[in-house]
């Protein structure tokens, strides 16, 4: 093993930030898909060392959970699964086999230092999925198990292991109650004039109705939880069964709906 690489690894293992970044003020902003962020590992957990932590946000997988890839400025340890990227002020590696999950609040403890292009992001994700875009620069394939690049990769994973394992908590979350409706059932509630309103929410007795970008959400009063309910729209049954969550999602990609009229036509009954 090259001595310089061994020395670099020792330096990496001992590296800590001089400044305590975990306690500084940062104004909350929305996470940027394709953004490379920098901060301290300690910001995620006080018991972790004050080591530098870089990551790239690749996807929003749930309401408040983002998938990120570990990024490092230690490009000398790049393996064949790492993409080497020059981001102007730094040369970094995107560790495509080292993903983990962070909430918006956690991401807000880090600084956005660079934003890659949509094309670069797509290339990175395609590479992870097995494609080999020729223009991407990657590291070396370690020939031996004890190669220091493997040690580096293992240590990189150990730093964020807890956040990698979060996927199991996410998968264990109860499934969202989704109701499929034919588009014609909602077309009659579409606003006739484009500029007539941009109202996205309304309420009625025991429910609140919200129109998102590609879904309608019915939030029912908590008194219906774990009860057998029947929900109808214009006498058509759209949900029947035990309510396990206050929210019911109806996928819908269309025009702005007249939510007040729609809410009027939705009825909730308890059964049994």
């Amino acid at each position, binding site marked *: 093993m090259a001595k310089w690489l061994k020395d670099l690894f020792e330096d990496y293992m001992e590296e800590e930030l001089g400044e305590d970044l975990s306690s*500084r*003020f*940062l*104004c*909350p*902003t*929305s996470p940027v898909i394709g953004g490379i962020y920098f901060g301290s590992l300690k910001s995620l957990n006080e018991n972790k060392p004050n080591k530098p932590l870089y990551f790239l946000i690749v996807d929003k997988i749930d309401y408040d959970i983002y998938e990120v890839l570990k990024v490092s400025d230690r490009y000398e340890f790049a393996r064949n699964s790492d993409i080497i990227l020059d981001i102007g002020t730094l040369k970094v590696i995107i560790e495509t086999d080292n993903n983990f999950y962070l909430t*918006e*609040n956690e991401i*807000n403890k880090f*600084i956005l*230092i660079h934003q890659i292009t949509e094309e670069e992001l797509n290339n990175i994700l395609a590479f992870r999925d097995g494609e080999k875009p020729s223009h991407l620069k990657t590291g070396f394939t370690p020939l031996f198990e004890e190669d220091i690049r493997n040690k580096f990769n293992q240590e990189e994973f150990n730093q964020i292991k807890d956040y990698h394992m979060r996927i199991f908590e996410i998968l264990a979350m109860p499934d969202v109650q989704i109701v499929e409706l034919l588009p014609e059932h909602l077309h009659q509630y579409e606003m006739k004039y484009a500029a007539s309103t941009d*109202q*996205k*929410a*309304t*309420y009625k*007795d*025991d*429910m*609140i109705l*919200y129109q998102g970008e590609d879904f309608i*959400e019915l*939030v*029912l*009063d*908590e008194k219906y939880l774990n009860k057998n309910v029947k929900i109808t729209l214009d006498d058509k049954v759209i949900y029947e069964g035990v309510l396990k969550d*206050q*929210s019911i999602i109806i996928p819908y990609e269309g025009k702005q709906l007249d939510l007040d009229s729609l809410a009027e036509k939705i009825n909730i009954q308890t059964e049994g």
Partner: protein
Amino acid sequence: MHIRQLIKIEKFYIVRELLKARKIKDEWLGDLYALLTLPDEDNEITKTKYELIKLILTEKIYFKPELFTSLSNIFDNKIVSELFKAKYKEVYFPIYNVDNEDESILAKALVVPLSSKTFSLNTFVKSESLYTIKTATNQNFFCNV
């Protein structure tokens, strides 16, 4: 259904849309005003506080002096009265980090000129930052980011 159920299950994005659509019942206002005292630990809370303050300052039917005064000692009768009469300004508020310029941002803020005090309900806005602007403008104000 009471809006406190939405707050409890953290559906702040729906709360904001109800505020924007003025779909608010009177009996919800106590719970909504209570949101203003929450620490800005979550961007969703910060954004909801912003929409709420904007609604209260725009539509006076939602302005309840007694709810303001019960929130904090900061809201004495004089300040509440000034808030009620004032017209807010929507401005971009520079938050500058002298140690690291990269952390400096332009935040959108609602500002109301006041005669006696300068303060913000955002827990992440440092009083020193407000004091700098107060000195530069020679004006007290209430600010919500």
